[in-house]
């Protein structure tokens, strides 16, 4: 107990008085900070009886562990405090990535004038279907596939989607409503002839945002 007092810095020093003693570099009951640092990084294995029976060493180790925890907290706290300096970085980023999305096949839209060749990309249609599902409420869309020849007008196609459902909602009704919403959106934005819409609810999510 006495050795503990002689090694540790005082814990109740008034702010304006003597500066705290530095943690000794080489006299923590015969161990150095370097040793303790290595020991910490080895996750304190193999067990070192000499270190673990020294209050000074254990205090130093506890302090270093606390520092590790604090660093993460400090970082997340700083990032929360960070003023939204500007969103320019994200706008520029999004413009670039939007231009790099793989377009897929062309989904044509008719026009009486043959001069005009109008279309949506497959990526645009799949994205639109996903968003239709995301905005229904209680559903988070997963995969979306368009099967069949979407490039030829009039060809019946099949839509396959997967979705995650908020816990507590009935899957049967959800699938029905989702199917209707997707059919409606496709009818509004494309001229695709939709034969079937297969909906598979393959996951649930909790309202707090954690996954299944």
């Amino acid at each position, binding site marked *: 107990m006495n050795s503990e007092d002689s090694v540790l810095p005082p814990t109740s020093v008034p702010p304006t008085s003597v500066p705290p003693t530095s943690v000794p570099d080489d006299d923590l009951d015969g161990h150095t900070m370097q040793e303790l640092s*290595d020991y910490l990084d080895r996750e304190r294995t193999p067990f070192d009886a000499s270190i673990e029976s020294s209050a000074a060493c254990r205090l130093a180790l506890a302090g270093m562990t606390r520092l590790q925890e604090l660093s993460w907290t400090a970082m997340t706290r700083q990032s929360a405090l960070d003023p939204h300096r500007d969103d320019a*970085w994200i706008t520029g980023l999004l413009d670039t*990535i939007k231009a790099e999305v793989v377009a897929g096949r062309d989904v044509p839209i008719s026009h009486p004038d043959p001069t005009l060749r109008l279309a949506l990309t497959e*990526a645009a249609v799949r994205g639109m279907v996903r968003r239709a599902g*995301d905005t229904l409420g209680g559903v988070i869309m997963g995969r979306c596939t368009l099967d069949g020849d979407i490039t030829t007008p009039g060809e019946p196609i099949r839509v396959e989607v997967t979705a995650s459902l908020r816990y507590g909602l009935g899957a049967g009704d959800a699938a029905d409503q989702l199917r209707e919403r997707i059919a409606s959106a496709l009818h509004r934005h494309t001229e695709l002839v939709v034969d079937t819409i297969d909906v598979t609810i393959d996951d649930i999510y909790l309202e707090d945002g954690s*996954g299944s």
Partner: protein
Amino acid sequence: MGEAESRDSLEEASDATLASRAADGDTHAFEILARRHGPLMRVFSAKLLGSDIESDDVVQEAFLIGWRHIGDLDSPANIRNWLMRIVTRKAIDRIRVRRIHDDIDDWDPPASPETSPERVVMARLQMDAVWDALDKLPPDQRRCWLLRESAGYSYQEIGDSLGLPISTVRGLLSRARRFLLTEMEAWR
């Protein structure tokens, strides 16, 4: 379901869901990831670099690389750690470039860990004190510490990143820890 007001379930989605959607070409899902993890990446890279301005660039680069290589991600749930590693790598690249051009990192020698009344008032929260204390470290000590404690790098990885032998990494790390411990004990 059936609420009349507009809603976006995707905001509530897990990282894993968002990463899968992004891998499928969904830029909106990627945007949510960027807003979610960008601030942390920015704070960390700023600390590594010692500069706010470059940290924005480095974060942007990291997200671009993330978007282009998102198919490489084995486990979508790990996207945050994956992004952190990318941004760390990009920040280290910048540090290396500076060294090649012989830029001297700006730093002052560590101040002696005194407790002045001003600092007591200013840094009430211990966690803020860590963050401030890091700035007092010489850059290599700070970087070793950040890479070890915040990014979880092994000694070998730190050595490779900073171009230092492992023995030097160990020494820098223990010196950094000693200094920070002393600083922090001022607030106990």
